[in-house]
């Protein structure tokens, strides 16, 4: 019973040990994991081929803080990403979403495949078929024509 009580007393300590501080925001390890997953999907607009998680730019740090604050406040990941898209447009997403604007982008591999199939089909159709050997009557007629 005494041991159990000691264990119970230690529990908050264990929970506290799992807290992490990133960019001045303190959050649990699982919250930090979620924040990192969100940040990895977002483009840093200052150095455009880095994600917000990787970038050392000041704006990226500020956005990391905002993401963590929203994670701690319990906002779901989708609404945090929407918050960024609302401000910076869909360009902030490292993976472009499927939309009217990106339709051609996503369809291009299939279009290329289709064009390839059409070309192959066309080439097959136009293939020159080898002439059948002459029948005896045809051979005789040809000889007759050549002799003349």
């Amino acid at each position, binding site marked *: 019973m005494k041991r159990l009580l000691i264990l119970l007393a230690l529990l908050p300590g264990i929970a506290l040990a799992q807290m992490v501080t990133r960019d001045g925001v303190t959050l649990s390890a699982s919250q930090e994991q979620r924040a990192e997953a969100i940040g990895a999907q977002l483009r840093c*607009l*200052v150095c*455009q081929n880095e994600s917000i998680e990787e970038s050392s730019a*000041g*704006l990226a740090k*500020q*956005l990391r803080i*905002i993401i963590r604050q929203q994670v701690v406040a319990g906002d779901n990941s989708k609404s945090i990403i929407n918050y960024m*898209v*609302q*401000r*910076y*447009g869909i*360009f902030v997403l490292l993976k472009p979403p499927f939309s009217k604007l990106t339709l051609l982008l996503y369809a291009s591999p299939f279009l290329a495949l289709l064009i390839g199939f059409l*070309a192959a089909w*066309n*080439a097959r159709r*136009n293939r020159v078929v080898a002439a059948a050997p002459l029948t005896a009557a045809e051979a005789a007629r040809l000889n007759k024509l050549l002799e003349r």
Partner: protein
Amino acid sequence: MDTRRRILFAAPLAVAAAGGAGFYTILRRMQDEKYDPHALPSPLIGHRPPAFTLPGMNNQQGFSSTDLSAPPRPMLVNWFASWCVPCVEEAPMLGQLAKAGLPIWGIAYQDTPQAVANYLNQYGNPFQRLANDSSGLTAINWGVYGVPETYLIDRQGIVRWRWAGALDQDVVSDNLAPLLDRYS
């Protein structure tokens, strides 16, 4: 049959030529500074700026989103900072526009009153009002991703144009001037 074959052989060449012409145009336009692949369209265009209130700075009046809701004539909101190099570059252009009668309101981004005062003393102060966004959080709500950025706001309070980077004579005559004509 023969023409068909010719077309079939010419097709890949035509595709390559079209691609080449496309790339050439892009590179050419980049060289002439008419196309910037890093430029982003602002989601604010066609909308009002998000709600905000910013205090003034150095005895100049600050402003809020309601002050921008119906300006008497089209105006510019310019985000700048004393620590920003392209801001120095565009300072003469802003001065020229202000002198020509275009209202320009400034927002100092992540800066201190003292540094801003020194900066404006040195490079001129084109701003009718001057707000202080020391935290940079209002900038995030506007979708500002660097300084300078300039927004054109029409008489209905709607953002019509955003330029990220220094304003120069080419940008003003090619982009801003026609819009000012249209919305005044």
